[in-house]
């Protein structure tokens, strides 16, 4: 059973998923259900008419308080393939009036009868705050909140892993880079734990690793040789220059020399290890171009899969509860 009491706002009174805010507290059954439906959506992009009517007549608002290209675009394409009407809001807000201004914006849009909000914000917990202030029929999806979570990215990552490696219980997975500032890593670790991955390791300079990382059921290595040994999946994270407050890495050259993924360092992993990156890539900072564009990289698959996985998550939230009498 899932620990649904952790984030009760995600569920309705019948225990059905209502918002998608965090991976934490979701059950294996829910994650697998999302991945299975996403699988049925994969070949939709190849049809002549790439639309199904699951969200016909519904309005989805992409509410991005932080810049984003791929996440916002794939959400937009996903919603349009489900026949929703999509409004893109690239809003900025004053840091001095945080909670108030974000809720005012949302209330205004809600008054225009929006059915679903996809929210990205630099403050952790924003999506949850919004969800708890909206009427019951409105759905909220977290598209990244501060350092907290980026749950749809984690879902498309585990979908891509399952596509190539199937059984999670046999997999050793390494996440390399700036774990401390990474909402992607946090969501990935939760998802991989729920799906029963054999081993999860994080690799990076200690200054970029949360102090309580072992409590998440994760091993730590401070160098690529130890960390990548016998690993089936290597997930590289972007060095987030915009989130670096102080001098957390000595220099970019030194970082690449110690933690960059190159043809050489990739040899520490299993010969069939796959390479992932949530993008955008800093070539020559965390990953070399030859590995990013190489045969073991699934970085472009991740982007393609993002559409099907986000369609599946939206479809899960929008579907109702009543019993069918329809044949």
């Amino acid at each position, binding site marked *: 059973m899932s620990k649904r009491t952790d984030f009760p706002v995600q569920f309705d009174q019948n225990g059905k998923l209502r918002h998608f805010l965090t991976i934490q507290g979701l059950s294996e059954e829910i994650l697998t259900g999302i991945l299975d439906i996403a699988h049925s959506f994969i070949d939709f992009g190849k*049809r002549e*008419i790439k639309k199904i*009517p699951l969200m016909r007549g519904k309005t989805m608002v992409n509410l991005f308080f932080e810049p984003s290209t791929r996440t916002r675009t794939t959400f937009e394409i996903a919603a349009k393939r489900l026949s929703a009407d999509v409004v893109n809001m690239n809003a900025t807000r004053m840091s001095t009036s945080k909670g108030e201004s974000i809720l005012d914006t949302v209330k205004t849009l809600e008054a225009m009868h929006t059915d679903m909000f996809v929210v990205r914000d630099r403050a952790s917990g924003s999506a949850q705050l919004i969800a708890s202030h909206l009427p019951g029929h409105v759905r909220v999806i977290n598209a990244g909140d501060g350092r907290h979570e980026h749950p749809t990215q984690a879902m498309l990552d585990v979908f891509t892993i399952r596509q190539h490696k199937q059984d999670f219980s046999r997999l050793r997975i390494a996440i390399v880079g700036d774990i401390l500032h990474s909402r992607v890593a946090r969501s990935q670790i939760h998802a991989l734990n729920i799906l029963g991955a054999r081993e999860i390791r994080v690799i990076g300079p200690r200054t970029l690793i949360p102090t309580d990382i072992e409590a998440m059921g994760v091993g730590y290595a401070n160098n690529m040789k130890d960390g990548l040994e016998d690993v089936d999946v290597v997930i590289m994270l972007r060095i987030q220059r915009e989130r670096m407050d102080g001098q957390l890495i000595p220099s970019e050259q030194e970082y690449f020399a110690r933690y960059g993924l190159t043809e050489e360092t990739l040899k520490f992993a299993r010969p069939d290890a796959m390479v992932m990156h949530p993008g955008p890539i800093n070539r020559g900072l965390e990953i070399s171009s030859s590995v990013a564009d190489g045969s073991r990289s699934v970085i472009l698959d991740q982007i393609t899969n993002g559409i099907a996985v986000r369609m599946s998550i939206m*479809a*899960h939230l929008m579907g109702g509860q*009543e019993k069918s*009498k329809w044949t």
Partner: protein
Amino acid sequence: MDNTVSNAIDHLAEQVSSSTIDEPLLIGIHTGGVWIAEILHRKISFNEELGTLDISFYRDDFSRVGLNPQVKASTLPFAIEDRNIILIDDVLYTGRTIRAALNEIFSYGRPASVQLGVLIKRTGRELPIQPDFTGMELDLGSHQQAKLYQHDGILGFGVDEVTAT
């Protein structure tokens, strides 16, 4: 096989095979319709493989009932553009399944024609949809449900009383 079902399938197969449709493509609707279509496909010679549709994503009651967690992939192993299609389902009741199936078929392309074959044509239509080929007819009330089942590869059918929910 249940005698009633087997007679109905024979009757349906007879009509389909004696029709004058030019090089038809056969498509079954999950789940019962695929069972019937598989039998027809074996009995009658078709040039192409059998196609299957899962219409879950096209249902008109999605916002009320949600997704079927057991959605199967639709497989149309042929181009449908300008082809003649025979769509097969087990029970024709309200007509909503066929409406959804037509929508899905048209998302793949524009067929020349679509005809409908059903094993059981029952009463209770809610849409102007009627079959071109019919295995058998049943007069049932709204409290009754005709259901095709398969046990150990043997097809049968039953009528259940539906209790109001």
